[in-house]
């Protein structure tokens, strides 16, 4: 049997997903989000969320410390740029390896407990990593100022073949510059590969084992399975995904700051997954896009833009509408995001994906069973 084989349904999902991702520069235009900087973020955080979902969605282990691996990936990538070469491939490889090792160490300890204790352990480790990066290891991480490239970095491999240029070098892929829309396509292709691997994991016997851990770990023990190696593998895989995302953040913008590892960043990926739909493949991606969209677009609105938008209203009404809406945009973007999150969790516990499913079932006139059955609510651990 071909190892690249995917069930037909998943193959269609992948094809549709690829189409959606690669045509982003077109369909994001009306949303004011079709610029490379944000589209790169969309793709990168989608990778992060997909990887996180391998752990949280399949095994049910709620990790509150995944931003640590993202940060480790970023730092590794920037150091690879500084010490070896501006090529992004070594940076990605090293970032995945190093964050995988971190995940192995942290997962080995944290997975001795489950439920809330596991969450707290991962949170503690992530906060330790953050504080190390922020103040203790400042020679390596440059603290709050963030690690950046400098003119006199060693860059051993690059300088064997070429002279130092006048300005700062920028990351490249096999001689191709990694900037603007090209960088988006590179990141998008990486996202598709990452998504495909996640699909393979979901349908594999290994994925089945992880789902079994989620539904009833005790029964697994009674039937003679040692679940910890499986959970640890899932933890390491999702840590590597996070490291990959971190390295891509550095590749598209060669800077690594400690705030990437803060607990709020770890919480953000949990929000992404829940907002989109836990345990589904597409859900976390949608969640990641929604959150990044709010963060980048809503925070950029100001009163002048609102007045422009509502200029069709009579003057008095316009002022009132602007006064109300301005609380939800600009510095208030987190308020509107919070509202949406509350609404989704209360009315659509399965996230946006559940909304989409309900919506499509309206048109089909009959209820179809869920695609994989993985979406059924399972008892909390």
């Amino acid at each position, binding site marked *: 049997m071909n190892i690249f084989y995917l069930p037909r349904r998943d193959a269609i999902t992948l094809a549709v997903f690829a189409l959606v991702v690669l045509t982003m520069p077109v369909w994001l235009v*009306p949303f004011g989000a079709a610029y490379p900087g944000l589209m790169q973020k969309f793709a990168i955080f989608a990778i992060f969320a997909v990887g996180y979902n391998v752990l949280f969605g399949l095994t049910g282990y709620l990790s509150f410390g995944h931003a640590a691996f993202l940060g480790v990936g970023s730092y590794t990538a920037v150091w690879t740029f500084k010490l070896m070469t501006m090529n992004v491939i070594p940076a990605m490889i090293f970032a995945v390896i190093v964050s995988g090792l971190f995940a192995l160490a942290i997962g080995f300890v944290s997975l001795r407990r489950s439920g809330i204790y596991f969450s707290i352990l991962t949170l503690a480790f992530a906060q330790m990593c953050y504080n190390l990066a922020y103040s203790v290891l400042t020679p390596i991480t440059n603290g709050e100022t963030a690690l950046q490239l400098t003119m006199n970095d060693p860059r051993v491999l690059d300088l064997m073949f070429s002279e130092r240029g006048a300005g700062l070098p920028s990351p490249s892929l096999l001689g191709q510059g990694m900037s603007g829309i090209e960088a988006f396509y590179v990141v998008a292709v990486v996202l598709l590969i990452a998504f495909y691997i996640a699909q393979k994991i979901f349908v594999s016997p290994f994925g089945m084992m992880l789902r079994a851990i989620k539904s009833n770990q005790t029964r697994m023990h009674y039937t003679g399975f040692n679940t910890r190696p499986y959970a640890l593998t899932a933890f390491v895989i999702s840590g590597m995904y996070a490291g990959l995302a971190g390295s891509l953040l550095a590749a598209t913008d060669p800077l690594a700051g400690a705030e990437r590892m803060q607990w709020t960043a770890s919480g953000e990926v949990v929000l992404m997954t829940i907002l989109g739909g836990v345990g589904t493949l597409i859900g976390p991606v949608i969640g990641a896009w929604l959150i990044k969209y709010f963060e980048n677009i809503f925070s*950029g609105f100001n009163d002048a833009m609102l007045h422009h938008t509502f200029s069709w209203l009579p003057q008095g009404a316009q002022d009132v509408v602007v006064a109300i809406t301005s609380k939800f945009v600009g510095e208030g973007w987190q308020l509107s995001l919070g509202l949406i999150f509350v609404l989704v969790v209360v009315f659509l516990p399965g996230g946006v994906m559940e909304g989409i499913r309900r919506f499509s079932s309206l048109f089909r006139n009959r209820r179809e069973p869920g695609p994989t059955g993985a979406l059924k609510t399972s008892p909390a651990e």
Partner: protein
Amino acid sequence: MTLLKRGLTRRRVLQTGMAGIIGSGVAPLMFTKGAWAQEFCNNPTGDTVTLGFVMPLTGAYADEGADQQRAFLLAVEHLNGEGDGGLLPTFSSKALKGNGILGKKVAYVTGDDQTKSDAGRDAARRMIERDGAIMISGASSSGVAIAEQALCQEMGVIYMAGLTHSNDTTGKDKKRYGFRHFFNAYQSGTAIAPVLGEAYGKDRRAYHLTSDYTWGWTQEESIKNATEAMGWETVAAVRTPVGAGDFSQYITPVLNSGADVLILNHYGFDGVNSLTQAVQFGLRDRQANGKDFQIVLPLVSDLMAQGAGEAIKGIYGTANWDWQLDDAASGAFTRSFGAKYGQPPSQIAQTSYVQALLYADAVERAGTFYPPEVIKALEGFEFDGMGNGQTLYRAEDHQCLKEVLVVQGRENPSTTFDVLQTVQKVGRDVADYDASIFEGELGPYDAALCA
């Protein structure tokens, strides 16, 4: 049947889609940049020119960011010839006519940097890539300013730094495309040390609490060097995280450290919190080494002073500008700002406003938006009438050289805004220093194509 059904669905999708677009107000933001060739990044081809303002609207410096935003909006108004013209009449360069920049109306976009480098760079990229901003200005944290400045150098867009006081901004991390009007920690040290020596004596023992990032580090170093040179001793220097909120765990050890001066290298809410807590702990009522215990806040702003309330009384610090200065320009700016917002401007408002005007003026004098020419127009530019006396934009490191103010918290403020008094104006010749004491390189002039 299926055909009909599909048609209906699609129409419905289109309708809801359009309603969503109009309803959520994104329609005016549609991506309009064409595919024509540009000879440099974001060459303004229409009848407007877009400036990008990135400010900390959330985070430890949010107060400062709010005032910064007010100043930028005021600057745009004055550049477009609306309002009372602000500093345009007092500015020594008469290139600006109040008809926009090079006849193009000034438009602007704003963004929140959350007092974080990543968020700041994201916002700046949005402005450069989507909104076609020709210049980025803002930041009130040096970490963010340095990160944004590096991005702007890469993208080939001029960066007019807001409030950034770290020596690194125009030192180790200086960039050809980055410019700073604000003064720096080194100048603070030069200015404040003699005043402290006079007031507190030359045999003091100082304890530093320092914000743990580029600004804190360089200010600690500068103040340490300047005070040690006149005979003070440094007992300890402790780093605190930005946005810590509670500083009690850092203040308690000060009590038994043998120090008799506490130097707070904190800014924004951090400065307000650490100062208030230090006063609440009774530090100022203590005696140490037979002297009255003193607290110094080397970089202080009106906003912090207002936030600290009682605690600021008698505290020494330095400032870039104060609204109570009696020159014509400071008066004009304070009137203009007060008329619009009903409160006097803080120093961050002044530096941000002036930066926006200086950029516009440089473009007018260069006669083009082409960044290398604008940079050359700013480098070595000598001007007056902006509230800081005679000022030079030094070509070697893009640092403005001008007067530095040593200020003190007023004992009996007459209004809530009358919180700082200027103790001494330290002349430009004293605050001047050799640019080569800091390493770093400006980099090339080449205009990038937005990448």
